[in-house]
């Protein structure tokens, strides 16, 4: 199979999963929001979140571990870079009330103006950041 076809099929699965969660639980599949509700649990609003994340982590792990030729995670990125990036991603996702999944996959699918604005903004700063790190200052 061609790489782009596998990527497209993976994307369709992500969209199907988000649609299934909305249809069954009435919830938006925004990973940062789902995780936030596990870290700061509210009464009677935790089980579905843990179930979704456990399913996601286990399935992705099984795929990477057992499917021949599956992409494997990178291992050699500088640790301080991971810490700074993690802080910014966690803080920014909560401040914006969503990340690539909540605003990107679900919000754009709902044609939400807020999500279009968020996605345009984080794409722009991400492009600029990667450009600056890879092509400036060397």
């Amino acid at each position, binding site marked *: 199979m061609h790489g*782009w076809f596998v*990527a*497209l099929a*993976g*994307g369709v*699965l992500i*969209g*199907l*999963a*988000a*649609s299934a*969660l*909305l249809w*069954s*639980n*009435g919830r938006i599949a925004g*990973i940062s929001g789902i*995780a936030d509700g596990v870290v700061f649990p509210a009464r009677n609003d935790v*089980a*579905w979140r843990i*179930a*979704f994340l456990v*399913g*996601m*982590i*286990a*399935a*992705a792990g099984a795929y*990477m571990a057992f499917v021949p030729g599956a*992409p494997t*995670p990178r*291992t050699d*990125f500088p640790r301080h870079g*991971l810490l700074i990036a*993690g802080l*910014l*991603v*966690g*803080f*920014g*996702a909560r*401040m*914006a009330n*969503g*990340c690539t999944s909540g605003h*990107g*996959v679900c919000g754009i699918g*709902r044609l939400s103006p*807020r999500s279009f*604005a*968020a996605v345009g903004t*984080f794409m722009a*700063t*991400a492009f*600029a950041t*990667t*450009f600056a*790190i*890879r*092509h400036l200052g060397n």
Partner: protein
Amino acid sequence: MQRSTIAALISGAIFGTGLAMSGMTDARRILGFLDIAGDFDPTLLFVLGGAVLTTALLFRPALLPARPMFAESFRLSTLRRIDRRLLGGAALFGIGWGIAGYCPGPALAGLGVGAVEALWFVPAMIAGMLLHRLSTKLSDQRLGVGLSS
């Protein structure tokens, strides 16, 4: 287990399969996409395209019933304003995403194989979420308004 919990588990498993299958758990792919001036890798465009086309098609019928299959009500964001919080948060998020190539889903998914980078990134991400909650609490207290988020 309740039916709603099982449905969430299955949804999560489909989501995780999609993430791993499309290579989103490999941050080199993400940075390859974000690096337009370098060796551009369009994979993410196909993933996001496939996902958004699917939600655009299926969200409408999913929202047609009066209530979700296994829950009381649909819980969609009621926020409408495009304000500084939304844009500032998205800007910070993009900078973090552009540094290491991880957003929350793929980073958490990496835990499934004990990926060493996920073990550094995820705790930092949770610390960032905590910091945000602390900072909104402090500013709400200073303004004398109730805790909203």
